[in-house]
């Protein structure tokens, strides 16, 4: 599986619509599953204006890569791409974008979904609320 992992201070993507822009896939893929995690306007019941993310950057990138390759053993996929934004991420904007291509959809769904669970356990990235 090809992997591409990035932690960035930049806004993820360009547009804000719900439609994906790129809707093809690389050679051999029959399925692409994407997950976008978006900052919501409340955190623990309080209204917030943003979340501030910090990362232990080299370790976080390595961990993401290791988790993807580990999950690929049970859910073989062709390509996985993760972008996690750090710094202040305003409400309504994306904090993370995961895109996985596979021959069949079951593996891609499983890999993305389990990756998100593992991210929230084992990747050194933290968020803190920025109040209105």
């Amino acid at each position, binding site marked *: 599986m090809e992997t591409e992992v990035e932690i960035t201070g930049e806004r993820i993507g360009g547009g804000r619509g719900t439609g994906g822009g790129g809707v093809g896939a690389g050679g051999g893929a029959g399925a692409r599953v994407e997950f976008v995690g978006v900052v919501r306007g409340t955190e623990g019941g309080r209204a917030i204006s943003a979340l501030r993310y910090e*990362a*232990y950057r080299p*370790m976080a990138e390595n961990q993401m890569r290791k988790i993807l390759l580990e999950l690929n053993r049970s859910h073989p996929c062709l390509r996985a791409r993760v972008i*996690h934004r750090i710094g202040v991420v305003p409400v309504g904007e994306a*904090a993370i974008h995961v895109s996985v291509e596979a021959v069949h959809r079951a593996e891609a769904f499983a890999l993305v979904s389990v990756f998100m669970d593992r991210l929230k356990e084992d*990747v*050194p*990235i*933290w968020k803190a609320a920025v109040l209105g």
Partner: protein
Amino acid sequence: MGDPSSDGGQVRVLFFSGAREACGLAEAMVACPSGMRIGDLLEELVRRHAGLAPLRGQVRLARNGEFARMDEGVFPGDEVALIPPVSGG
């Protein structure tokens, strides 16, 4: 890393998120005597920064970018990070 001549026999300790807030600093240099283990280093940090005590049960430590067991050795030049419960995504 691991070359005592260049680091004066110390490890660099990084504090993230709640650990940083608990001790009020982002990083520190800590002496690393021969035979020190990750658990010993954590105890030393809690002695210096009482605010870390409540986190002791939740925090994990990483040595040179990998999660480390408490009985794992730590060596001069290592980079050790205190990893409170994560919340990415």
